[in-house]
């Protein structure tokens, strides 16, 4: 929403404009091709792809960090990484994987698919969406530059105070952590608001709440979780930052502070966060399994409500990370019990997926393999989670490799497997060619086996008493064998990831030689399959009208008198062709990128020199106002050579408001 609207003006002097684009770089960008267009794009699909690419990049970064950890731990007393470096590496591994891999990967799917699944052209605030991405990337790069600027964060991903105060962590690493995560937090928060508005306001005609695909539902829950969880971590990080930079006392024990405050604040965020990570994968799997079982999802409403229940209950269990921290038996008992019962809605999901498969016609394509892999592997992680929730048992387990095993089974066996499945599943829709199935199967089996070889033994290690976050152990402790096994497993995972990367390259290279995928390669059910592949820029030629859950599928298939399923139409017949060319789309914009660049500059300023803050602040402020005042469209494009006038007031409906001239003041508040 432009506070001040600057509508393109006709020149009043009557003489023809001498220059069409007198502003040079300052006019609203128009190009939709070439690498530069990616910088200014506001298309939710491209932004989704950018998120995905960034996430995969950081997955390799975080994975290499993991491999370093595993190398160091392969043998007792190894010296691959010194203590200091080891601490930085595992901290950055955790931070990278959680904040720079799992979250943006979820965001990639959310961005790409939500508008498609609810049948609209874009998100509610396209420029804000672009900003979210650039802001995320800026924060991610910012955190990672700490490697070169005096050392990465070294306090563990949950950064318990006071170990993260300047006294005990004197390098700048934790400053990068605190500020960097605030920047990525802004991204998540704005993106959450954006997507919530999108789902509430922009569903296609007939797309009622209970006709929405499960995936969209889960994503909606995730956005609500983000909306409420991000401010909590932001607050905690602010307190830490004030302590570190300006000598506040929030975690200064000498002044009487209680370090448990940090633990509470972090985990109030932290636990909803783990559901923020897993629900996108749950959503993806809920789309994949019905398609490859050729059955509708079993218990649609239960799936939805259990997702909501998980999101809701996730707020009342955070102190299960603090069972040993001395919060008192009453709190421990309360949180122990509340934690256990989260298994109930999660179990509903697992069992419903199994019921969906039951009696189906299961086709084990690569996406299906990954999806079933999730159901199976996540259950293991979930069950070990339940054993943690038994607080007395957790006093033995906490901070051992048993916990490491638990959360890798849920984050890797859940999030990574689920979203890899998602990538194989939606790849044809996104890029117009499918990933090779044979290579995909190699990828899957290598990953599944490698993953179990890596993290399975960690259960044993943990029960045998191996603490986590230790840089080394001695040979007398009985940890030698399983650590070596785990290290071997981690390299199998690396190999599987290499197969995945190879598959992408190879499939891209041979994309023209293989049969075209068509709009609907898998006999899909939801609206994204009802348009061409790759999705045209405008998504839909005309806005689809929805009459039921799985509407697209029901247009392809009907029942004859005997109740047999018969084909009504082929996907090619009913899917939109994406050939329409006169759809008005929001124009690209420079400003999201500009504003996002300003933020890390402020961050560096806080750490190194306050004058830089002025520079960064000026960029942000100028960028925000330029953004607000940016004309709805490039004024000159209206007179462009192709003669087509998409000047949006031209069609006389007087509704000058397209969605993109939108977002504004939300921007300023989080900055403050």
């Amino acid at each position, binding site marked *: 929403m432009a506070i001040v609207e600057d509508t393109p003006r006709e020149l009043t002097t009557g003489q023809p404009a001498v220059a069409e684009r007198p502003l040079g770089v300052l006019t609203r960008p128009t190009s939709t091709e070439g690498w530069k267009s990616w910088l200014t794009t506001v298309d939710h699909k491209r932004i989704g792809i950018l998120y995905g690419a960034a996430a995969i990049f950081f997955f390799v970064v975080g994975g290499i960090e993991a491999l370093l950890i595993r190398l160091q731990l392969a043998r007792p007393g190894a010296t691959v990484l010194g203590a200091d470096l080891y601490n930085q590496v595992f901290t950055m591994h955790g931070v990278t994987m959680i904040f720079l891999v799992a979250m943006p990967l979820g965001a990639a799917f959310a961005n790409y698919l939500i508008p498609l699944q609810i049948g609209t052209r874009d998100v509610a605030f396209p420029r804000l969406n672009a900003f979210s991405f650039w802001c995320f990337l800026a924060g991610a790069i910012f955190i990672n530059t700490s490697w070169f600027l005096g050392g990465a964060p070294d306090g563990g991903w949950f950064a318990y105070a006071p170990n993260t105060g300047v006294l005990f962590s004197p390098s700048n690493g934790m400053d990068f952590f605190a500020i960097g995560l605030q920047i990525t937090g802004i991204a998540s928060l704005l993106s959450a608001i954006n997507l*919530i508005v999108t789902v509430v306001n922009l569903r296609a005609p*007939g797309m009622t709440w209970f006709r929405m695909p499960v995936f969209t539902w889960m994503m909606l829950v995730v956005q*609500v979780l983000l909306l409420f969880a991000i401010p909590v971590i932001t607050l905690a990080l602010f307190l830490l930052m004030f302590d570190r930079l300006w000598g506040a006392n929030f975690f200064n024990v000498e002044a009487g502070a*209680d370090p448990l405050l940090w633990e509470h604040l972090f985990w*109030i965020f932290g636990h909803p966060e783990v559901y923020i990570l897993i629900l996108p994968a749950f959503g993806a799997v809920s789309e994949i399994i019905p398609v490859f079982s050729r059955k509708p999802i079993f218990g649609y409403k239960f799936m939805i409500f259990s997702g909501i229940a998980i999101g809701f209950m996730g707020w009342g269990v955070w102190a299960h990370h603090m069972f040993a921290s001395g919060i008192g038996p009453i709190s421990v008992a309360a949180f122990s019990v509340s934690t256990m019962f989260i298994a109930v809605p999660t179990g509903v999901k697992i069992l419903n997926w199994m019921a969906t498969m039951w009696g189906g016609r299961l086709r084990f394509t690569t996406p299906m393999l990954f999806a079933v892999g999730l159901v199976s592997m996540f259950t293991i992680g979930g069950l070990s989670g339940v054993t943690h929730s038994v607080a007395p048992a957790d006093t033995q387990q906490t901070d051992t490799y048993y916990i490491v095993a638990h959360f890798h089974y849920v984050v890797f066996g859940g999030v990574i497997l689920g979203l890899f499945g998602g990538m194989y599943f939606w790849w044809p829709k996104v890029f117009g060619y499918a990933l090779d199935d044979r290579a995909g199967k190699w990828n899957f089996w290598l990953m599944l086996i490698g993953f179990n070889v890596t993290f399975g033994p960690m259960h044993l290690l943990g029960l045998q008493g191996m603490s986590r976050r230790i840089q080394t152990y001695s040979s007398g402790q009985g940890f030698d064998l399983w650590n070596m096994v785990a290290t071997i497993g981690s390299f199998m995972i690396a190999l599987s990831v290499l197969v995945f990367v190879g598959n992408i390259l190879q499939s891209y290279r041979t994309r023209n030689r293989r049969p075209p995928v068509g709009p609907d390669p898998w006999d899909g059910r939801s609206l994204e399959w009802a348009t061409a592949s790759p999705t045209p820029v405008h998504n839909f030629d005309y806005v689809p009208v929805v009459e039921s859950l799985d509407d697209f599928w029901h247009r392809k298939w009907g029942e004859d008198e005997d109740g047999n399923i018969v084909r009504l139409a082929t996907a090619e017949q009913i899917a939109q062709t994406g050939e329409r060319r006169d759809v008005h789309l929001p124009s690209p914009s420079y400003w999201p990128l500009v504003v996002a660049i300003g933020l890390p500059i402020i961050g560096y300023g806080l750490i190194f020199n306050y004058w830089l803050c002025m520079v960064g602040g000026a960029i942000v402020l100028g960028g925000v106002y330029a953004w607000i005042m940016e004309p709805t469209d490039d004024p000159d494009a209206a007179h462009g050579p192709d003669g087509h006038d998409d000047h949006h007031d031209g069609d006389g409906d007087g*509704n000058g*408001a397209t969605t993109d001239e939108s977002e504004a003041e939300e921007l300023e508040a989080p900055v403050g």
Partner: protein
Amino acid sequence: MTTASDSATVEDTVENDEEHEHISDWGYVKVALLLAVITALEVFTYFESVVDWGKALVPALLVMMVIKFGVVVAYFMHLKFDSQVFTRVFVAGLLFAIGVYLAMIMAFGFHPWEIFQE
């Protein structure tokens, strides 16, 4: 700037978003006067000589706070007359905040009933 197009397909149970001049300027002034009075009452609790609230002090302050909060939200922020959806997102945040942080400070040994003990 709302698009009122296609209202036929609007299936949500939201109230219609037509111009709602429920309150006149004078009405707003009256609301503000109410708020002013409550604020004055609040401030008077500070001067113990005026009224001694005893154990009821903190609860009384809280009640007045909640009333003021509610009045501003309902009237100045129009929530009373606006769509339910707005109420839901806002109140959800509010309730989450109250619930979570209350639980947190209780874990630190704060008991809500202690507010009655001056």
